[in-house]
Protein backbone atom coordinates (compact mmCIF):
# COMPACT_ATOMS: atom_id res chain seq x y z
CA UNK A 1 0.00 0.00 0.00
CA UNK A 2 2.74 2.41 0.96
CA UNK A 3 4.67 1.51 -2.14
CA UNK A 4 1.70 2.35 -4.29
CA UNK A 5 1.27 5.64 -2.47
CA UNK A 6 4.94 6.52 -2.97
CA UNK A 7 4.83 5.61 -6.64
CA UNK A 8 1.69 7.68 -7.10
CA UNK A 9 3.24 10.75 -5.55
CA UNK A 10 6.40 10.33 -7.59
CA UNK A 11 4.35 10.38 -10.78
CA UNK A 12 2.21 13.31 -9.65
CA UNK A 13 5.25 15.33 -8.57
CA UNK A 14 6.48 15.46 -12.16
CA UNK A 15 3.88 18.14 -12.91
CA UNK A 16 5.02 21.69 -12.19
CA UNK A 17 1.78 22.86 -10.60
CA UNK A 18 1.54 19.70 -8.54
CA UNK A 19 4.97 20.41 -7.10
CA UNK A 20 3.67 23.61 -5.62
CA UNK A 21 0.56 21.90 -4.28
CA UNK A 22 2.48 19.08 -2.65
CA UNK A 23 4.94 21.50 -1.10
CA UNK A 24 2.15 23.79 0.05
CA UNK A 25 3.33 26.77 -1.95
CA UNK A 26 0.65 29.08 -3.22
CA UNK A 27 0.75 30.42 -6.74
CA UNK A 28 2.16 33.69 -5.45
CA UNK A 29 5.31 31.86 -4.53
CA UNK A 30 5.05 32.12 -0.78
CA UNK A 31 5.01 29.09 1.44
CA UNK A 32 1.67 28.40 2.98
CA UNK A 33 2.37 25.57 5.27
CA UNK A 34 4.80 23.38 7.13
CA UNK A 35 8.01 25.18 7.80
CA UNK A 36 6.54 28.66 7.71
CA UNK A 37 3.67 30.46 9.35
CA UNK A 38 0.03 30.02 8.36
CA UNK A 39 0.30 26.26 8.04
CA UNK A 40 -2.10 24.50 5.69
CA UNK A 41 -3.16 21.35 7.54
CA UNK A 42 -3.72 19.36 4.37
CA UNK A 43 -0.34 20.04 2.83
CA UNK A 44 1.38 19.68 6.19
CA UNK A 45 -0.03 16.14 6.38
CA UNK A 46 1.23 15.37 2.89
CA UNK A 47 4.65 16.66 3.86
CA UNK A 48 4.77 14.52 6.99
CA UNK A 49 3.63 11.46 5.10
CA UNK A 50 6.15 12.00 2.33
CA UNK A 51 9.03 12.39 4.76
CA UNK A 52 7.87 9.28 6.63
CA UNK A 53 7.91 7.28 3.40
CA UNK A 54 11.36 8.62 2.58
CA UNK A 55 12.58 7.28 5.91
CA UNK A 56 10.94 3.91 5.33
CA UNK A 57 12.87 0.68 5.68
CA UNK A 58 11.38 -0.51 2.43
CA UNK A 59 13.85 0.43 -0.31
CA UNK A 60 11.22 0.79 -3.02
CA UNK A 61 9.12 3.02 -0.83
CA UNK A 62 12.05 5.19 0.20
CA UNK A 63 13.37 5.44 -3.33
CA UNK A 64 10.09 6.66 -4.76
CA UNK A 65 9.47 9.06 -1.90
CA UNK A 66 12.93 10.58 -2.18
CA UNK A 67 12.43 10.73 -5.93
CA UNK A 68 9.29 12.74 -5.31
CA UNK A 69 11.25 15.11 -3.07
CA UNK A 70 13.86 15.45 -5.78
CA UNK A 71 11.13 16.29 -8.28
CA UNK A 72 9.81 18.96 -5.94
CA UNK A 73 13.29 20.40 -5.60
CA UNK A 74 13.40 21.15 -9.32
CA UNK A 75 11.23 24.16 -8.56
CA UNK A 76 13.08 26.61 -6.36
CA UNK A 77 9.80 27.91 -4.95
CA UNK A 78 9.61 24.70 -2.91
CA UNK A 79 13.08 24.95 -1.39
CA UNK A 80 12.12 26.81 1.72
CA UNK A 81 9.42 24.26 2.46
CA UNK A 82 11.68 21.31 1.71
CA UNK A 83 14.30 22.56 4.10
CA UNK A 84 11.61 23.30 6.65
CA UNK A 85 10.68 19.62 6.62
CA UNK A 86 14.11 18.78 7.87
CA UNK A 87 16.00 18.07 4.66
CA UNK A 88 19.09 17.22 6.70
CA UNK A 89 17.79 13.67 6.72
CA UNK A 90 18.60 13.58 2.99
CA UNK A 91 22.25 14.02 3.85
CA UNK A 92 21.90 11.25 6.39
CA UNK A 93 20.35 8.97 3.77
CA UNK A 94 23.18 9.61 1.35
CA UNK A 95 25.79 9.01 4.01
CA UNK A 96 24.07 5.85 5.25
CA UNK A 97 24.40 4.37 1.79
CA UNK A 98 27.89 5.65 1.22
CA UNK A 99 30.30 2.97 0.03
CA UNK A 100 32.87 1.61 2.42
CA UNK A 101 36.47 1.73 1.31
CA UNK A 102 36.30 -2.01 0.52
CA UNK A 103 33.17 -1.80 -1.57
CA UNK A 104 34.24 1.13 -3.70
CA UNK A 105 31.43 2.98 -5.37
CA UNK A 106 28.64 0.49 -4.88
CA UNK A 107 26.42 -1.05 -7.53
CA UNK A 108 26.51 0.37 -10.97
CA UNK A 109 23.28 -1.01 -12.35
CA UNK A 110 21.07 1.70 -13.75
CA UNK A 111 17.45 1.71 -12.80
CA UNK A 112 14.91 0.91 -15.42
CA UNK A 113 12.61 3.83 -15.97
CA UNK A 114 10.08 4.45 -18.68
CA UNK A 115 9.73 7.65 -20.60
CA UNK A 116 6.47 8.62 -18.95
CA UNK A 117 7.88 9.26 -15.50
CA UNK A 118 8.55 5.71 -14.47
CA UNK A 119 9.43 5.63 -10.82
CA UNK A 120 13.02 5.02 -9.81
CA UNK A 121 12.05 2.55 -7.18
CA UNK A 122 10.84 -0.29 -9.34
CA UNK A 123 12.29 -3.58 -8.27
CA UNK A 124 14.38 -5.34 -10.86
CA UNK A 125 12.76 -8.70 -10.56
CA UNK A 126 14.10 -11.99 -11.64
CA UNK A 127 11.86 -13.30 -14.36
CA UNK A 128 15.00 -14.02 -16.29
CA UNK A 129 16.83 -15.51 -13.38
CA UNK A 130 18.20 -12.23 -12.11
CA UNK A 131 19.00 -12.67 -8.46
CA UNK A 132 17.18 -10.68 -5.82
CA UNK A 133 20.41 -9.08 -4.64
CA UNK A 134 20.78 -7.36 -7.99
CA UNK A 135 17.39 -5.79 -7.48
CA UNK A 136 18.31 -4.58 -4.03
CA UNK A 137 21.61 -3.15 -5.26
CA UNK A 138 19.80 -1.39 -8.05
CA UNK A 139 17.39 0.00 -5.49
CA UNK A 140 20.25 1.37 -3.41
CA UNK A 141 21.76 2.98 -6.47
CA UNK A 142 18.41 4.55 -7.28
CA UNK A 143 17.94 5.83 -3.74
CA UNK A 144 21.35 7.47 -3.56
CA UNK A 145 20.88 8.92 -7.02
CA UNK A 146 17.61 10.55 -6.06
CA UNK A 147 18.98 11.84 -2.77
CA UNK A 148 21.96 13.34 -4.55
CA UNK A 149 19.73 14.87 -7.20
CA UNK A 150 17.63 16.51 -4.52
CA UNK A 151 20.64 17.91 -2.70
CA UNK A 152 22.13 19.18 -5.93
CA UNK A 153 18.91 20.99 -6.80
CA UNK A 154 18.64 22.51 -3.35
CA UNK A 155 22.23 23.66 -3.68
CA UNK A 156 21.26 25.62 -6.76
CA UNK A 157 19.56 28.16 -4.54
CA UNK A 158 21.92 30.52 -2.75
CA UNK A 159 19.39 31.08 0.00
CA UNK A 160 19.63 27.45 1.07
CA UNK A 161 23.37 27.07 1.29
CA UNK A 162 23.74 27.76 4.96
CA UNK A 163 21.06 25.28 5.96
CA UNK A 164 22.39 22.70 3.56
CA UNK A 165 25.90 22.96 4.84
CA UNK A 166 24.70 22.84 8.44
CA UNK A 167 22.82 19.66 7.55
CA UNK A 168 25.89 17.93 6.19
CA UNK A 169 25.08 18.25 2.51
CA UNK A 170 28.70 18.83 1.51
CA UNK A 171 29.82 15.61 3.17
CA UNK A 172 26.97 13.74 1.53
CA UNK A 173 27.73 15.15 -1.92
CA UNK A 174 31.40 14.32 -1.62
CA UNK A 175 30.41 10.79 -0.67
CA UNK A 176 28.11 10.56 -3.67
CA UNK A 177 30.89 11.84 -5.89
CA UNK A 178 32.77 8.66 -5.19
CA UNK A 179 29.97 6.38 -6.36
CA UNK A 180 30.49 4.19 -9.36
CA UNK A 181 27.16 5.24 -10.79
CA UNK A 182 28.11 7.96 -13.25
CA UNK A 183 24.80 9.79 -13.00
CA UNK A 184 25.02 10.01 -9.23
CA UNK A 185 28.57 11.27 -9.40
CA UNK A 186 27.57 13.88 -11.94
CA UNK A 187 24.71 15.09 -9.76
CA UNK A 188 27.11 15.30 -6.85
CA UNK A 189 29.60 17.30 -8.88
CA UNK A 190 26.86 19.71 -9.88
CA UNK A 191 25.74 20.08 -6.31
CA UNK A 192 29.24 20.85 -5.12
CA UNK A 193 29.67 23.27 -7.99
CA UNK A 194 26.47 25.02 -6.94
CA UNK A 195 27.65 25.23 -3.37
CA UNK A 196 30.96 26.62 -4.48
CA UNK A 197 29.24 29.13 -6.68
CA UNK A 198 28.59 31.38 -3.74
CA UNK A 199 31.65 33.05 -2.28
CA UNK A 200 30.66 32.30 1.27
CA UNK A 201 30.23 28.68 0.41
CA UNK A 202 33.63 28.16 -1.12
CA UNK A 203 35.36 27.98 2.22
CA UNK A 204 32.94 25.40 3.59
CA UNK A 205 33.01 23.45 0.35
CA UNK A 206 36.76 23.46 0.27
CA UNK A 207 36.83 22.34 3.88
CA UNK A 208 35.03 19.17 2.91
CA UNK A 209 36.22 18.70 -0.62
CA UNK A 210 39.62 20.33 -0.62
CA UNK A 211 41.26 17.30 -2.10
CA UNK A 212 39.17 17.71 -5.19
CA UNK A 213 39.17 21.43 -5.72
CA UNK A 214 42.44 22.84 -4.48
CA UNK A 215 44.85 22.99 -7.39
CA UNK A 216 47.89 20.84 -7.17
CA UNK A 217 46.59 18.71 -4.31
CA UNK A 218 47.36 15.10 -4.86
CA UNK A 219 44.69 12.50 -4.37
CA UNK A 220 45.81 8.95 -4.53
CA UNK A 221 49.11 9.98 -5.98
CA UNK A 222 47.71 12.03 -8.83
CA UNK A 223 48.00 15.78 -9.06
CA UNK A 224 45.08 17.84 -10.24
CA UNK A 225 45.58 20.76 -12.55
CA UNK A 226 44.20 24.06 -11.38
CA UNK A 227 40.52 24.03 -12.19
CA UNK A 228 38.63 26.87 -13.69
CA UNK A 229 35.92 28.13 -11.43
CA UNK A 230 34.01 29.88 -14.18
CA UNK A 231 31.73 26.94 -14.65
CA UNK A 232 31.40 26.46 -10.93
CA UNK A 233 30.20 30.01 -10.45
CA UNK A 234 27.14 29.53 -12.63
CA UNK A 235 24.21 29.42 -10.28
CA UNK A 236 20.89 27.72 -10.66
CA UNK A 237 22.07 24.52 -12.20
CA UNK A 238 19.27 22.06 -11.71
CA UNK A 239 19.34 18.35 -12.13
CA UNK A 240 16.28 17.33 -13.99
CA UNK A 241 14.87 14.08 -15.12
CA UNK A 242 14.84 10.80 -13.34
CA UNK A 243 16.39 8.85 -16.14
CA UNK A 244 19.00 11.13 -17.58
CA UNK A 245 21.07 14.05 -16.59
CA UNK A 246 19.70 17.01 -18.48
CA UNK A 247 20.80 20.34 -17.16
CA UNK A 248 18.75 23.47 -17.33
CA UNK A 249 19.78 26.93 -16.26
CA UNK A 250 16.90 28.94 -14.89
CA UNK A 251 16.13 32.18 -16.74
Amino acid at each position, binding site marked *: *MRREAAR*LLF*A*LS*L*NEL*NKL*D*VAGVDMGGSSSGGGGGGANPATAEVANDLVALARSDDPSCACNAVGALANLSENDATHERLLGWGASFLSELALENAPTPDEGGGGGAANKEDANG*GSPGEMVEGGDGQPATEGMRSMEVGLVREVTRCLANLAGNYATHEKLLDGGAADALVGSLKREDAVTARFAALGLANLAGQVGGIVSTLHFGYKLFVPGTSVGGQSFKPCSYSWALTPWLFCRGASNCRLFASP
Partner: protein
Amino acid sequence: MDPTKQKTHKRIPQVLAALCNLSLSGCIGQDPARFLKAVDVGNLVSFLCSADVTYRLFGAVTLGNIASDVSLQAPIVRGGALTPLITIANAADLETQRCIAYSLCNLSANPARRGAIISEGGLPSLISLACSDHPVDQRAALATLRAIAADPDHRRAVVEAGALEAFSLGARYASHGVGVSACPSPPPPPLPPKT
Protein backbone atom coordinates in the same frame (compact mmCIF):
# COMPACT_ATOMS: atom_id res chain seq x y z
CA MET B 1 -32.65 -14.30 -22.42
CA ASP B 2 -33.57 -10.63 -22.70
CA PRO B 3 -34.77 -9.48 -19.31
CA THR B 4 -36.68 -6.60 -20.87
CA LYS B 5 -38.92 -9.04 -22.66
CA GLN B 6 -40.17 -10.63 -19.49
CA LYS B 7 -43.91 -10.42 -19.35
CA THR B 8 -44.02 -10.09 -15.64
CA HIS B 9 -41.92 -7.58 -13.75
CA LYS B 10 -41.60 -9.95 -10.84
CA ARG B 11 -39.12 -12.01 -12.79
CA ILE B 12 -36.80 -9.15 -13.59
CA PRO B 13 -35.04 -9.06 -10.19
CA GLN B 14 -34.59 -12.81 -10.36
CA VAL B 15 -33.14 -12.55 -13.83
CA LEU B 16 -30.83 -9.80 -12.71
CA ALA B 17 -29.79 -11.82 -9.67
CA ALA B 18 -29.01 -14.73 -11.97
CA LEU B 19 -26.92 -12.47 -14.18
CA CYS B 20 -24.98 -11.22 -11.19
CA ASN B 21 -24.35 -14.71 -9.93
CA LEU B 22 -23.22 -15.80 -13.37
CA SER B 23 -20.83 -12.90 -13.57
CA LEU B 24 -19.49 -13.57 -10.10
CA SER B 25 -18.98 -17.26 -10.71
CA GLY B 26 -16.86 -16.68 -13.77
CA CYS B 27 -19.33 -18.23 -16.19
CA ILE B 28 -19.09 -15.18 -18.37
CA GLY B 29 -15.45 -15.85 -19.07
CA GLN B 30 -16.19 -19.23 -20.59
CA ASP B 31 -18.24 -17.77 -23.40
CA PRO B 32 -18.25 -14.00 -23.07
CA ALA B 33 -19.46 -13.25 -26.56
CA ARG B 34 -22.49 -15.44 -26.07
CA PHE B 35 -23.23 -13.82 -22.74
CA LEU B 36 -23.03 -10.32 -24.14
CA LYS B 37 -25.11 -11.28 -27.12
CA ALA B 38 -27.79 -12.64 -24.86
CA VAL B 39 -27.78 -9.77 -22.43
CA ASP B 40 -27.00 -6.69 -24.48
CA VAL B 41 -25.06 -3.93 -22.79
CA GLY B 42 -27.88 -1.52 -23.40
CA ASN B 43 -30.16 -3.53 -21.14
CA LEU B 44 -27.56 -3.56 -18.41
CA VAL B 45 -27.17 0.20 -18.75
CA SER B 46 -30.91 0.67 -18.50
CA PHE B 47 -30.93 -1.25 -15.25
CA LEU B 48 -27.97 0.79 -14.07
CA CYS B 49 -29.97 3.97 -14.68
CA SER B 50 -33.07 2.62 -12.98
CA ALA B 51 -34.66 4.42 -10.07
CA ASP B 52 -34.68 1.14 -8.17
CA VAL B 53 -31.66 0.75 -5.94
CA THR B 54 -31.54 -3.01 -6.42
CA TYR B 55 -31.59 -2.75 -10.18
CA ARG B 56 -28.82 -0.20 -10.09
CA LEU B 57 -26.67 -2.37 -7.87
CA PHE B 58 -27.16 -5.45 -10.01
CA GLY B 59 -26.40 -3.48 -13.14
CA ALA B 60 -23.23 -2.08 -11.58
CA VAL B 61 -22.04 -5.45 -10.31
CA THR B 62 -22.60 -7.17 -13.64
CA LEU B 63 -20.99 -4.42 -15.68
CA GLY B 64 -18.05 -4.32 -13.31
CA ASN B 65 -17.47 -8.04 -13.56
CA ILE B 66 -17.75 -7.99 -17.33
CA ALA B 67 -15.22 -5.16 -17.40
CA SER B 68 -12.75 -7.30 -15.47
CA ASP B 69 -12.21 -9.16 -18.74
CA VAL B 70 -10.11 -6.90 -20.93
CA SER B 71 -11.49 -8.45 -24.10
CA LEU B 72 -15.03 -7.46 -23.14
CA GLN B 73 -14.33 -3.84 -22.31
CA ALA B 74 -14.71 -2.52 -25.84
CA PRO B 75 -18.32 -3.76 -26.17
CA ILE B 76 -19.15 -2.16 -22.83
CA VAL B 77 -17.80 1.21 -23.94
CA ARG B 78 -19.37 0.91 -27.38
CA GLY B 79 -22.65 0.11 -25.70
CA GLY B 80 -22.55 3.52 -24.04
CA ALA B 81 -21.93 2.33 -20.49
CA LEU B 82 -19.15 4.73 -19.58
CA THR B 83 -21.10 7.94 -19.14
CA PRO B 84 -23.97 6.35 -17.18
CA LEU B 85 -21.50 4.56 -14.95
CA ILE B 86 -19.84 7.81 -13.98
CA THR B 87 -23.08 9.77 -13.72
CA ILE B 88 -24.80 7.21 -11.52
CA ALA B 89 -21.79 6.99 -9.23
CA ASN B 90 -22.46 10.49 -7.98
CA ALA B 91 -25.96 9.66 -6.79
CA ALA B 92 -25.82 6.03 -5.78
CA ASP B 93 -25.50 4.13 -2.54
CA LEU B 94 -22.08 3.20 -1.25
CA GLU B 95 -22.05 -0.36 -2.54
CA THR B 96 -23.09 0.71 -6.02
CA GLN B 97 -20.44 3.44 -5.94
CA ARG B 98 -17.87 0.83 -5.02
CA CYS B 99 -18.90 -1.45 -7.88
CA ILE B 100 -18.84 1.44 -10.33
CA ALA B 101 -15.41 2.51 -9.11
CA TYR B 102 -14.12 -0.99 -9.69
CA SER B 103 -15.61 -0.88 -13.17
CA LEU B 104 -13.66 2.30 -13.84
CA CYS B 105 -10.50 0.71 -12.45
CA ASN B 106 -10.93 -2.15 -14.89
CA LEU B 107 -11.72 0.13 -17.82
CA SER B 108 -8.65 2.27 -16.98
CA ALA B 109 -6.44 -0.70 -17.74
CA ASN B 110 -6.53 0.49 -21.33
CA PRO B 111 -4.43 3.68 -21.58
CA ALA B 112 -6.45 4.87 -24.55
CA ARG B 113 -9.56 4.99 -22.41
CA ARG B 114 -8.17 6.97 -19.49
CA GLY B 115 -8.65 10.35 -21.08
CA ALA B 116 -12.34 9.66 -21.62
CA ILE B 117 -12.77 8.52 -18.03
CA ILE B 118 -11.21 11.75 -16.80
CA SER B 119 -13.15 14.00 -19.16
CA GLU B 120 -16.43 12.32 -18.18
CA GLY B 121 -15.67 12.98 -14.51
CA GLY B 122 -14.60 9.53 -13.35
CA LEU B 123 -11.77 10.64 -11.08
CA PRO B 124 -13.90 11.39 -7.99
CA SER B 125 -15.11 7.77 -7.95
CA LEU B 126 -11.56 6.52 -8.04
CA ILE B 127 -10.46 8.95 -5.34
CA SER B 128 -13.38 7.82 -3.14
CA LEU B 129 -12.35 4.20 -3.60
CA ALA B 130 -8.77 5.10 -2.72
CA CYS B 131 -10.03 6.73 0.49
CA SER B 132 -12.16 3.79 1.55
CA ASP B 133 -11.65 1.65 4.63
CA HIS B 134 -10.91 -1.52 2.69
CA PRO B 135 -7.20 -2.02 1.99
CA VAL B 136 -7.86 -4.06 -1.14
CA ASP B 137 -10.08 -1.33 -2.54
CA GLN B 138 -7.56 1.33 -1.57
CA ARG B 139 -4.70 -0.41 -3.23
CA ALA B 140 -6.65 -1.10 -6.41
CA ALA B 141 -7.61 2.55 -6.69
CA LEU B 142 -4.10 3.82 -5.90
CA ALA B 143 -2.67 1.57 -8.59
CA THR B 144 -5.26 2.86 -11.05
CA LEU B 145 -4.49 6.47 -10.18
CA ARG B 146 -0.79 5.79 -10.60
CA ALA B 147 -1.40 4.32 -14.03
CA ILE B 148 -3.46 7.36 -14.99
CA ALA B 149 -0.72 9.65 -13.67
CA ALA B 150 1.80 8.02 -15.97
CA ASP B 151 0.44 10.29 -18.69
CA PRO B 152 1.75 13.86 -18.19
CA ASP B 153 -1.53 15.31 -19.45
CA HIS B 154 -3.49 13.71 -16.62
CA ARG B 155 -1.31 14.46 -13.62
CA ARG B 156 -2.78 17.84 -12.79
CA ALA B 157 -6.34 16.57 -13.03
CA VAL B 158 -5.56 13.73 -10.64
CA VAL B 159 -4.29 16.13 -7.97
CA GLU B 160 -7.16 18.54 -8.50
CA ALA B 161 -9.58 15.65 -7.93
CA GLY B 162 -8.11 15.14 -4.46
CA ALA B 163 -5.44 12.48 -4.92
CA LEU B 164 -3.23 13.96 -2.20
CA GLU B 165 -5.70 12.88 0.44
CA ALA B 166 -5.70 9.37 -1.00
CA PHE B 167 -1.91 9.45 -0.96
CA SER B 168 -1.84 10.38 2.71
CA LEU B 169 -4.21 7.59 3.65
CA GLY B 170 -2.18 5.08 1.70
CA ALA B 171 1.10 6.34 3.13
CA ARG B 172 -0.16 5.86 6.68
CA TYR B 173 -1.49 2.37 6.09
CA ALA B 174 -0.24 -0.02 8.71
CA SER B 175 -0.85 -3.70 8.20
CA HIS B 176 -1.85 -5.54 11.33
CA GLY B 177 -0.79 -9.04 10.53
CA VAL B 178 -1.56 -11.82 12.96
CA GLY B 179 1.54 -13.63 13.96
CA VAL B 180 1.38 -17.34 14.42
CA SER B 181 3.91 -19.08 16.53
CA ALA B 182 3.92 -22.70 17.54
CA CYS B 183 4.01 -23.42 21.22
CA PRO B 184 7.12 -25.41 22.09
CA SER B 185 6.46 -28.97 22.93
CA PRO B 186 6.57 -29.63 26.67
CA PRO B 187 9.61 -31.41 27.99
CA PRO B 188 9.16 -35.14 28.31
CA PRO B 189 8.20 -36.30 31.79
CA PRO B 190 11.04 -37.76 33.86
CA LEU B 191 11.33 -41.52 33.68
CA PRO B 192 10.11 -43.33 36.78
CA PRO B 193 12.89 -44.81 38.85
CA LYS B 194 13.54 -48.49 38.18
CA THR B 195 12.43 -50.74 40.86
